[in-house]
């Protein structure tokens, strides 16, 4: 998009061909905060509108996945999870993973799914992937209740460490957004992307210590390379914050740096391409 100065005093909008790389206009985004709210609200509302079980799906999904992985990896393959019961071990990882997975799925198709808005109305385009991810956050909040119930059943204590879940959740969201910026933008031109996302997520899931402990990855260089996957830091962080499992080390920092690089580049790529969305989508 062109440089649009939404100046609340005189409200002069200028139109010109856009050139070069643009940063993100936070003031304009603030101006459109209600639209972010309404689009998020729409996504949540529509998702559960005709589902008889409604919001229960947000709980059912992790329950079922936990059950399956517990049977296959915990009971049949007997993966060693230290002192933690396997279901708790895997559930703590599955919750942020599902958050990430759903966020990435939704955001990568968000632009194409909202093509009618892109071609008819101006607003900062970034709102589209942003609100699709925010809507997923509601599911996540509900699924957290499940986690606390399970912890109660297994008599695991909650500590103040639990506050770490907030920045860790943020890291998971930012990771999804970072990849989402790239994929949603590419998907506008190349619809192959939406076919690719399920595969990408499958590979990504096995590259994250969800069904197995990180300890099976050799320490040293390989572990660091492995930690470039931001979800490694998130999942390990969740386990630590909840069960005081092995505390996060440098891996979390490596993850965070990787996310930031991906996020900033994704953002610039998105801003660079967004002027063409209406013409191409």
């Amino acid at each position: 998009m062109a440089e649009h100065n939404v100046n609340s005093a005189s409200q002069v909008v200028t139109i010109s061909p856009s050139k070069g790389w643009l940063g993100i206009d936070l003031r304009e985004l603030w101006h459109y905060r209600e639209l972010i709210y309404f689009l998020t609200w729409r996504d949540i509302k529509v998702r559960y509108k005709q589902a008889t079980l409604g919001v229960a799906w947000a709980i059912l999904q992790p329950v079922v996945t936990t059950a399956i992985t517990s049977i296959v990896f915990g009971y049949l393959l007997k993966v060693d999870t230290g002192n933690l019961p396997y279901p708790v071990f895997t559930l703590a990882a599955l919750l942020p993973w599902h958050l990430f997975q759903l966020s990435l799925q939704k955001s990568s198709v968000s632009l194409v799914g909202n093509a009618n808005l892109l071609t008819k109305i101006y607003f900062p385009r970034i709102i589209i992937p942003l609100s699709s991810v925010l809507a997923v956050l509601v599911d996540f909040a509900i699924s957290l209740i499940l986690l606390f119930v399970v912890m109660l059943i297994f008599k695991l204590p909650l500590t103040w460490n639990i506050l770490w879940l907030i920045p860790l959740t943020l890291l998971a969201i930012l990771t999804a957004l970072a990849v989402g910026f790239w994929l949603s933008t590419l998907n506008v031109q190349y619809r192959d992307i939406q076919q690719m996302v399920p595969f990408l997520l499958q590979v990504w899931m096995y590259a994250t210590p969800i069904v197995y402990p990180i300890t099976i990855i050799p320490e040293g260089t390989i572990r660091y390379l492995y930690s470039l996957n931001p979800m490694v830091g998130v999942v390990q962080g969740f386990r630590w914050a909840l069960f005081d499992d092995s505390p996060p080390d440098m891996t979390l920092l490596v993850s965070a740096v990787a996310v930031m690089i991906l996020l900033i580049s994704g953002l610039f790529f998105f801003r660079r391409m967004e002027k063409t969305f209406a013409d191409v989508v």
Partner: protein
Amino acid sequence: MDNKTSILVKGISKRYKIGAAQERQDTLRDLIVSQARNLGRFFSGKRGLSDKYEHIWALRDVSFEVKRGQALGIIGRNGAGKSTLLKILSRVTDPTEGYGELRGRVGSLLEVGTGFHPELTGRENIFLNGAILGMHKKEIEARFDEIVDFSEVEKFIDTPVKRYSSGMYLRLAFAVAAHLEPEILVVDEVLAVGDADFQRKCLGKMGDVASSGRTVLFVSHNMSAIQRLTEESLVLDKGRVLMRAPSGEAVDFYLNRGLTKLGERFWEEDEVPANSAPFRPLAIRIVDKNEQVSDSVRSVDPIRIEIDYELTEDVTGLRVGYYLFTTHGEPVFTSFDTDAEDMFREYTARKAGVYTSRCMIPADTLNEGRFVLGINASSYGIRRYFQDDQALSFSVDASGAPGTHWPESRPGAVRPSLQWTIEERGRA
């Protein structure tokens, strides 16, 4: 830009790639294939990268200015660049060149009901759509009752809009849009929807907006709406501004230039929608007293209208006819070839073949001025095969008609020669 100016546009151009039609790159595979091909060309010394795409200029060097509180109409044929211009001014897409400035809060209605979600209720969609159009939650709440009132869907406000009839849907959508209160309103053809009653209501509302001191840019194919709502209009053709004039003049110019080919109009095969089969229009023409095809006829002479068409199958219940409009879009009359009862009996079933339906408009029927013929072919109550509301236009010259010894223009679309008697009832 002085402070009375509301919209300033300088040298706006927009270029689209169209070569993509021959070599689409909508999937990665296509991209990979075409890149490989380019690489091949590169090595074989044939550099063909730049001629891969053809470009078209949807807009070329468009400049204009709109004063605060002025309503400007934009007219032109399909593909003239009207919608592209509005898209650029609405910031949906960027210009390739040029510069523009809009002073004040801009509300743009490129369609009504943008972002409506079928699963959400009327109430929910009002809020969603309002937010998409740039209204704040508080504004929507404040005007909520008004919006519902205007839409006339009160009873169904908590029903998902997927259960609405299309009329209800449009009314609700327009109601939200109508209660947007921007300083600059950009509107594209949104009045072309809904039934006649609702259209009138929408036009009224638009009139209010235009007269309340807001700046309005208005694109429409409805020439009478353009003339009612705007003082001045731009005529666009092939992406360029042909003229800017008071709307009456601009409309005349547009109709005279755009539609006529000397009293005859042919339809090429690709101009006819596929779903009009088995009816295919071939031509429509105006023939004067001297058997000449002409776009300028005299009021005092009879006029013949001929419609050539082909039926690719036998058709029952067919009627072929025309609407006659003034250039302001007001209907004058409608007539079909099987209106007369004996014609109906004889021709209601027609075999496949090529036909011409001829109609005589008797002398002393039309007043001077410009008229537009619309064509319609349908089977009553079954289906409409083909309709073109602006098939052809022609002008009528009134010289010699009743009353022309007074050099004045007579209002009205018809100028019949009527019998008068004058009786002296006594002496003063």
